[in-house]
């Protein structure tokens, strides 16, 4: 009978197989071995079979010449560049849409979300209509709308809409003057940096002063003056080193200037407005989660409506808003692959499209592309989680 004594008996003599700790570690080890073995045999098998069919494998193709053009490149790229560089170009184009899209979506989303709770009938109704229309239409459809419907309404480059003779809008996109940095331009750039630094310092100082004395300083106006004034003084002192290359119509298209291609505009606008509808709902739910007593308390302390919103409501609403907001950011980044539908040269179009087709190395390229999206999502989620920790309710 003593052999059957359980753990209660203290010095159990039972087999180590029954030890829950040993068991769980053992089972996990077995699972790990099985997964690793499956992964390994899958890769080996795939390699053997691909070799048997004489389908090229490996990652050597990244060093080969790509030989195709891309119409939006943030880094120098030409037809003689490698597939590896084409990959980076595509990745940067994806990131550009994601970053600009997230920025715009956040602003629009917060405005509309607050608008839905407005006391003003028109603002409230417009915000509701915005949310209900945009979040209930498929994103690809919206992208195609912005691209095809808006694009075909635009004039050709020879009849483009000109703003002050400097900016041109046509069905080739928006063409803006390119800044040319002459001698002394470095000083101006330094002045901008210095102005931003001073503005941040001033804000901190004003905040601490307000806590001590209760007196407000016109932070906004002082900072605006700093950020505009300091670079302006630097410009005058160095004799205007930054000039602008104005685009000229020459032959088919504009020459000079920076071209913002319509595919980028359509994709960014569509994704930003679409995602903003979801963000607006997150913001609304976040604000509504803060009890009305908080507003009343703030009002009775003498805070104005805007101050109540900014200092009392939003900070508390943030901890409800952030987690679903992260999901929306991830969605926007991933939805950017719908670029394929309108010919925007993003990662999927350039790398998992053209490069895949020219090299035929589907498995490698799709694996890399999936890895990139996974990585982008994990990075975004990590940043948002760090921010979430900062705004989360600190329980005492």
């Amino acid at each position, binding site marked *: 009978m003593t052999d059957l004594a359980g753990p209660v008996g203290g010095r159990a003599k039972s087999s180590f197989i029954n030890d829950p700790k040993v068991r769980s570690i053992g089972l996990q080890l077995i699972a790990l071995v099985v997964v690793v073995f499956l992964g390994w045999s899958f890769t080996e098998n795939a390699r053997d079979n691909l070799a048997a069919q004489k389908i090229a494998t490996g990652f050597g193709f990244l060093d080969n010449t790509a*030989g*195709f*053009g891309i119409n939006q490149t943030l880094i120098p790229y030409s037809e003689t560049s490698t597939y590896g560089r084409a990959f980076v170009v595509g990745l940067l184009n994806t990131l550009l849409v994601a970053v600009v899209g997230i920025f715009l979506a956040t602003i629009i989303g917060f405005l509309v979300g607050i608008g839905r709770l407005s006391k003003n009938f028109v603002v409230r109704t417009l915000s509701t209509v915005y949310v209900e229309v945009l979040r209930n239409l498929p994103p690809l459809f919206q992208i195609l709308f912005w691209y095809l419907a808006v694009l075909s309404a635009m004039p050709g480059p020879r009849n483009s809409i000109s703003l002050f003779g400097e900016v041109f809008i046509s069905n080739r996109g928006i063409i803006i003057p390119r800044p040319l940095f002459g001698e002394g331009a470095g000083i101006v750039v330094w002045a901008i940096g210095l102005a931003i630094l001073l503005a941040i310092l001033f804000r901190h100082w004003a905040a601490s002063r307000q806590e001590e004395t209760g007196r407000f300083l016109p932070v906004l106006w002082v900072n605006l003056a700093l950020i505009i004034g300091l670079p302006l003084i630097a410009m005058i002192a160095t004799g205007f080193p930054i000039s602008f290359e104005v685009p000229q119509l020459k032959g088919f298209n504009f020459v000079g200037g920076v071209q913002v291609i319509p595919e980028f505009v359509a994709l960014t606008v569509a994704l930003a407005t679409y995602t903003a509808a979801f963000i607006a709902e997150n913001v609304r739910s976040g604000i509504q989660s803060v009890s009305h007593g908080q507003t009343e308390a703030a009002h009775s302390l003498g805070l104005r409506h805007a101050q109540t919103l900014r200092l009392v409501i939003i900070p508390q609403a943030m901890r409800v808003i952030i987690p679903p907001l992260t999901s929306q950011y991830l969605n926007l980044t991933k939805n950017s692959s719908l670029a394929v539908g309108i010919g925007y040269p993003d990662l999927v179009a350039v790398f998992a499209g053209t490069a895949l087709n020219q090299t*035929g190395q589907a498995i490698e390229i799709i694996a890399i592309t999936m890895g990139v999206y996974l990585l982008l999502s994990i990075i975004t989620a990590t940043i948002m989680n760090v921010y979430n920790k900062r705004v989360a309710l600190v329980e005492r």
Partner: protein
Amino acid sequence: MKRLLSTFALAGAMGLCAFGAQAATKLEQVKSKGFVQCGVSQGLPGFSNPNDKGEWSGLDVEFCRAVAAAIFGDATKVKFTPLSAKDRFTALQSGDIDILSRNTTWTITRDTSLGLNFTGVTYYDGQGFMIRKDKKVNSALELSGASVCTQTGTTTEQNLADYFRANNMTYEVIAFATNDEVVKAYDAGRCDVLTTDRSGLAGERLKLTNPDDHIVLPEIISKEPLGPVVAHGDDQWFDIVKWVLYAQLNAEELGVNSKNVDEQLKSAVNPEIKRLLGTEGKYGEGMGIGNDWGYLIIKNVGNYAEIYDRTVGPDTPLKLARGLNALWNKGGIQYAPPIR
């Protein structure tokens, strides 16, 4: 999505199949499922294009019907999978389709590093440019600075880059995933020029709002031999697909067509015709199909000239002259090895 599925299928097929285990041959597979699965375009008039009832027509489509006719004696035993340019090879590699007959250019990379075999040339083509008449351009050499619309995953994209670079011209390329998107963007004025194979230009011009406002520039900037493709690893299937085209070309050369083939079957004295129609020799045996394979192709689908004339020829909306695609003894370069 289709591409992703195909890729997973490919990864799955490559990863899970035990190496060396020989499954049924392609011909056995096709016979047991009862039809040929044929990869075609998503809609290119003259080559592979569905009508409003979903019936496919075109040169590439007819080729697949001819293969079905040779195997089953029935040209309708074929199913079509519409594929975009960039999904087509993955679909073939993964075995989703048996034949790719989708105006596909034969190049060394595709032939040697994708695990594919080109079975011949159904249409000799070359890349050209289409532009609006009111742009007043008469030569491709005047295109410097132009915006060019094209389809991704085509040889076109690289030829374009080569041509503009060789002639020291600048350009902006806008590449779309499907043909329809290319045509829509060109029609909306997003680009000045549309480029693809000249046969494709003839077909796509028909989809524009005002086809007569556009011209095709005279320059041909590349060689584009278009033909059917099969996957590596089954020589018997490769032979069948290859010889279906040769039978059609030989039939044209010998003057055998779908109208006179029954008569020829009974009364022909020319041994070449007899071998083609299977009344002499056993040439189907070597491919594992019936000896009357040639007869079945001509009877059910027709010879090369018949197919050409009813899909892309001068009497069709595409109005393409035979040109290079005439037989070798009529000024063209279409030439088939003899059946003997």
